[in-house]
């Protein structure tokens, strides 16, 4: 009997071994994935042939993609390396997409239908210069015109068929800057125009077959050029002189150079400095003067005349040939809540081919770029479609006065993420509309049962999948019991806030940050960081939670900061203010006022700190804790870490009573000749630690050293700060430190000889895990350091506790010298890493998983048990029971534990975790060019039934049991009766 019971127990336990994997039909149940491309820089339409109409775009996220013009979906996409920015994109031979990248040194051809790379050519480059790509529009397909690519001081002619370099020409002469490469159609001469020392115009004529210079002409222009250039036709360009007040037309017909000067004051009255805008218009140029855009036509002899002027906020497209050698261009500008799109003929600006007004969301900002394309309507007239890029980076296709599709490309450049709760379900509001009748419910569960028994047909499977997607109101806009529904607030580089619903990833609201003063200098502040400003849960339940967005006017760190407070429920800005000082560091303090607004300190460049919110209540709270506020600064370039404390109110200097002066408490200076700081990290301030102690196998207690004031610092030898191939093992060493940020005491130092960065680390509870490169083994390594408190180690005796002879009640001070010891262990890891995060749960009970963002843009969940310094080669029976895994030299990469399963988060930059209310579960949000969200249960959902749980099976079992009981009861009654009769 006993054996049998234990056998049963064993079977039961072995089936409960944790696994993290996903079945294929569970994809999309808890996770969602959104694919983006980023802000579009160039767009080329491909609509000539019948079949799929597409647009090829290149973006600021180094993405080249082919989009469906009908719906805006992606056909294919490639994300190039971070230092491989795309300079130009075009279509060659009608079947290849040509991209020029890496400052004009890399030319690639992609197959237009499927995006397969066809050829790749590295171009010779010697210096940094502007890069130009010119792909001939060939009308005869059989004739192979070369692609002209200029970059790095060299002009290359490359065959479009196989990428072979036909010839190259050196333009690296000192002081010579190539400005334009022009090839008149149907001509074998290429004109290369450049400026020598910005004062001499030089035109080379090059034979397009051989690359030989046929003729070279130069002419000195006394005034000097300012650089901006606009080519108006195949033999004329217009430049500004160095004073930016005279337009110079340079004609180089047949190789002869001539200049023609036209002062801008002749064109416009009271003109200031002018600026040539980039669009390519034939025989015309656009100049920005006095905050207006003027169109200047270039006459046959280089005569200039103003033909039109538009408001400053107008975006223009390049010119586009429409039928019968007419050329048209589009312009778009904002007026109120509408966008006015106009397409005009270049030759005759009074002929408006298209005039459309489209209602546009205010939070998209202004139009930044317009690309147009024409098509022939059924009545043989010209129709136009316009692709526009807005200020918030979104991409829209306009056609026939309507938005055909739009893409929120701002989400490709998320810079900071925070979470927010949804509103509580109110009694008056009925949400039960989605619940259906009992019969439907049972039917659904019968289907699920069929599915789990694998008896379902294909249609059933589809029905189950659909039901799951819709089920349980996962996209409702109210808080749920388990905390699965939440908002992720994301700040993008364009300064737009997005609230994403965890259930289905849709955008609940979005908001473009505005400058409070609407001043000239700071019309649109750039967002830096997001903080949770007000999270009401105790006293201020009727207040809406809000987030604080810290922004900056301009890119310089000393630029004045802007604060904006945004209501999370509505997405409306509550208030915003110009704070009048710079923002170096924002420190959320662990105090809140009576309305649960969190106190924040903002440090500026002058060494002062400013308290927010500026209320007397906040001030009184802060005064109480004045002596206990410390912070540190890291000066990475100098290798110095400084600790600061509060000194006094800076009332002496300014009348601002919320401003405080600080004093320097300590400095840690790393020797600059041997150590360079490459990474610093602290614990997440809101992390919850459940237990202070850890019970080891021999009934011994280990106390975790849990301190919020620990700073992890990694330094490498200056030589090893570069890329992997650049240093030998002898020259490089990696040193990591644990520094107490209150006293500046170095608690632990660990050096790895022959190792180098980049270091990616994660710090949680009492441990740090970091990833670096080992040059000797030529492999990546992961090291774990766990910190334990020695001073409380004697408290494990029960009698001491009973008799009160313990020091548990002794005050813990950050000033006292901590007695601590560390344990560490290193393992090999077979992949490069982009970022590491750790799961976080509500109470910190659930075991942790490391989330490793690999360079393949996948996220691997690795159990913390694998990076446990107590792992040994042959764990004892007791250790095995505790869950200690035998030591291996490398960490396992189990394909089933990729939480992104068969998806990629292209261009992965960061992973954010947030606890759900249910202890076992954690939210994971990863951002990069793509967005990915999933819910994880590192130790399985031990505290709730899974979505898969078959209630129908349970019901059937119960019903069957009841029926069995009844039947057996009847039978036994009968039997008893018959026995009694006997």
């Amino acid at each position: 009997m006993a054996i049998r019971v234990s056998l049963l127990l064993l079977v039961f336990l072995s089936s409960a071994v944790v696994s993290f994997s996903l079945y294929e039909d569970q994809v999309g149940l808890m996770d969602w994935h959104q694919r983006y491309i980023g802000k579009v820089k160039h767009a080329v339409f491909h609509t000539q042939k019948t079949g799929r109409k597409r647009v090829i775009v290149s973006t600021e996220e180094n993405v080249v993609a082919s989009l469906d013009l009908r719906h805006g979906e992606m056909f294919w996409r490639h994300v190039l390396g971070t230092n491989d920015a795309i300079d130009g994109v075009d279509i060659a031979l009608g079947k290849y997409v040509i991209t020029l990248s890496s400052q004009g040194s890399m030319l690639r051809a992609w197959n237009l239908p499927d995006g397969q790379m066809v050829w790749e050519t590295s171009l010779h480059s010697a210096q940094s210069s502007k890069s130009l790509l010119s792909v001939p529009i060939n009308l005869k397909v059989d004739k192979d015109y070369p692609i002209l690519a200029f970059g790095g001081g060299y002009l290359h002619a490359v065959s479009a068929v196989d990428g072979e370099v036909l010839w190259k020409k050196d333009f690296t002469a000192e002081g010579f800057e190539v400005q334009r490469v022009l090839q008149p159609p149907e001509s074998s001469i290429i004109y290369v125009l450049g400026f020598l020392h910005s004062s001499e115009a030089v035109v080379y004529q090059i034979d397009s077959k051989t690359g030989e210079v046929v003729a070279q002409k130069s002419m000195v222009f006394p005034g000097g050029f300012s650089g901006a250039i606009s080519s108006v036709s195949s033999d004329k360009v217009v430049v500004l002189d160095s004073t930016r007040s005279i337009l110079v037309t340079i004609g180089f017909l047949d190789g002869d150079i001539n200049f023609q000067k036209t002062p801008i004051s002749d064109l416009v009255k009271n003109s200031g400095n002018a600026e040539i805008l980039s669009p390519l218009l034939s025989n015309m140029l656009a100049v920005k003067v006095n905050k207006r855009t003027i169109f200047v036509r270039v006459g046959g002899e280089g005569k200039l005349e103003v033909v039109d002027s538009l408001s400053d906020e107008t975006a223009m497209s390049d010119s586009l040939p429409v039928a019968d050698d007419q050329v048209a261009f589009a312009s778009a500008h904002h007026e109120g809540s509408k966008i006015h799109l106009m397409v005009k003929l270049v030759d005759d600006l009074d002929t408006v081919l298209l005039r459309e007004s489209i209602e546009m969301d205010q939070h998209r900002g202004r139009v930044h770029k317009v690309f147009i394309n024409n098509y022939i309507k059924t009545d043989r007239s010209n129709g136009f479609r316009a692709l526009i890029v807005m200020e918030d980076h979104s991409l829209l296709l306009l056609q026939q006065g309507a938005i055909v599709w739009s893409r929120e490309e701002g989400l490709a450049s998320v810079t900071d993420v925070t979470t927010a709760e949804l509103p509580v379900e109110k009694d008056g509001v009925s949400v039960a509309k989605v619940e259906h009748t009992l019969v439907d419910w049972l039917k659904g569960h019968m289907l699920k049962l069929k599915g789990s028994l694998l008896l379902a047909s294909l249609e059933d499977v589809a029905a189950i999948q659909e039901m799951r997607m819709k089920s349980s109101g996962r996209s409702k806009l109210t808080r749920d019991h388990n905390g699965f529904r939440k908002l992720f607030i994301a700040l993008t580089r364009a300064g737009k806030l997005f609230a994403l619903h965890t259930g289905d990833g849709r955008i609940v609201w979005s908001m473009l940050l505005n400058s409070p003063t609407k001043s000239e200098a700071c019309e649109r502040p750039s967002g830096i960081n997001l903080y949770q400003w007000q999270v009401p849960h105790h006293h201020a339940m009727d207040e809406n939670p809000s987030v604080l967005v810290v922004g900056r006017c301009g890119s310089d760190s000393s630029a004045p900061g802007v604060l904006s407070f945004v209501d999370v429920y509505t997405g409306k800005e509550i208030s915003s203010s110009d704070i009048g000082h710079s923002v170096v560091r924002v420190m959320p303090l662990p105090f809140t006022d009576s309305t649960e607004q969190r106190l924040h300190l903002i440090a500026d460049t002058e060494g002062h700190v400013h308290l927010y919110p500026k209320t007397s209540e906040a001030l009184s709270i802060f005064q109480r804790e004045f002596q206990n506020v410390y912070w540190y600064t890291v000066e990475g370039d100098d290798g110095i870490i400084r600790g600061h404390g509060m000194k006094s109110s800076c009332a002496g200097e300014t009348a601002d009573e919320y401003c405080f002066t600080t004093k320097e408490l300590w400095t840690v200076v790393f020797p600059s000749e041997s150590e360079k700081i490459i990474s610093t990290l602290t614990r997440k301030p809101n992390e919850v630690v459940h237990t202070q102690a850890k019970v080891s196998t021999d009934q011994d207690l280990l106390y975790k050293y849990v301190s919020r004031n620990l700073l992890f610092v990694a330094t490498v030898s200056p030589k090893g700060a570069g890329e992997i191939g650049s240093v030998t093992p002898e020259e490089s060493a990696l040193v990591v430190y644990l520094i107490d940020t209150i006293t500046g005491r170095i608690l632990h130092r660990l050096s790895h000889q022959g190792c180098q960065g980049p270091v990616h680390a994660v710090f949680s509870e009492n441990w740090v895990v970091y990833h670096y490169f080992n040059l000797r083994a030529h492999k990546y390594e992961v090291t774990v350091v766990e910190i334990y408190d020695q001073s409380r180690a004697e408290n494990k005796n029960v009698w001491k506790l009973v008799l009160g002879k313990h020091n548990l009640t002794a005050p813990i001070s950050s000033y006292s010298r901590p007695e601590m010891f560390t344990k560490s262990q290193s393992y090999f890891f077979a992949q490069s890493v982009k970022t590491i995060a750790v799961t976080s749960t509500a109470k910190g009970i659930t075991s942790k998983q490391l989330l490793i963002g690999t360079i393949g843009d996948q996220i691997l969940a690795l159990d913390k048990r694998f990076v446990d310094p107590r792992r040994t080669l042959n764990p004892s029976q007791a250790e095995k029971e505790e869950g200690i895994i035998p030591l291996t030299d490398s960490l396992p990469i189990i394909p089933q534990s990729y939480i992104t399963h068969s998806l990629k988060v292209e261009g992965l930059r960061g992973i954010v975790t947030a606890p759900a209310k249910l202890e076992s579960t954690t939210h994971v949000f990863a951002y990069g060019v793509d967005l990915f969200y999933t819910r994880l249960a590192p130790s399985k959902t031990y505290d709730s039934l899974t979505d898969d749980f078959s209630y129908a099976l349970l019901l059937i079992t119960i019903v069957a049991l009841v029926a069995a009981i009844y039947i057996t009861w009847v039978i036994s009654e009968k039997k008893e009766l018959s026995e009694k009769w006997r």
Partner: protein
Amino acid sequence: MAPILRSTPLVALLVLQISLLFFASTLPISSGSEDSYTITGRVRIPAIILAGTAIGHAAKFSNIKVVLNGGQNISFLRPDGYFTFHKVPAGTHLIEVYALGFFFSPVRVDVSARHHGKVQATLTETRRSLTELVLEPLRADQYYELREPFNVMAILKSPMGLMVGFMVVVVFLMPKLMENIDPEEMKRTQEELRNQGVPSLSSLLPASR
């Protein structure tokens, strides 16, 4: 510069899938000027590994990336599986291949300055050195758990099934066993047990009769 094969992607893919014995000829691994070199290699997915994967990930050649030194350079594959890194200085480098559905070992690549950019490659996971830079996946990755097909034995083997089975045994077989035992003998054993004072299942069973 590597020779560029002018073949259509389809043909090349087909050729690849038949595990490519023809291409085992010598590879121009590296070339270049004095201080910077070019590394050329090839990614090949043998038919054996390819066969083990779902058709979904297989043959997605356009999504394979080759990464030099942890992201310093990213290269893409040509239709024939070749990749190239240009302007690589002499030294020891790391090349990784990322393809959804496959696991590749990182490769240690030594570019020798003395031998004009001669390349030596070693797989860091298996410590196997390569004579030519042809990278093959170590295994195919299966990201999903496979659902076990419906199986009566699986249900019976599950803890629930075992418990139910045990119950059935107790309810139906035990009385049968009891019947076979001689009542006299039973009484004797019962008494013995009572003397020992150990309650057992058998002491309870006759009571119900």
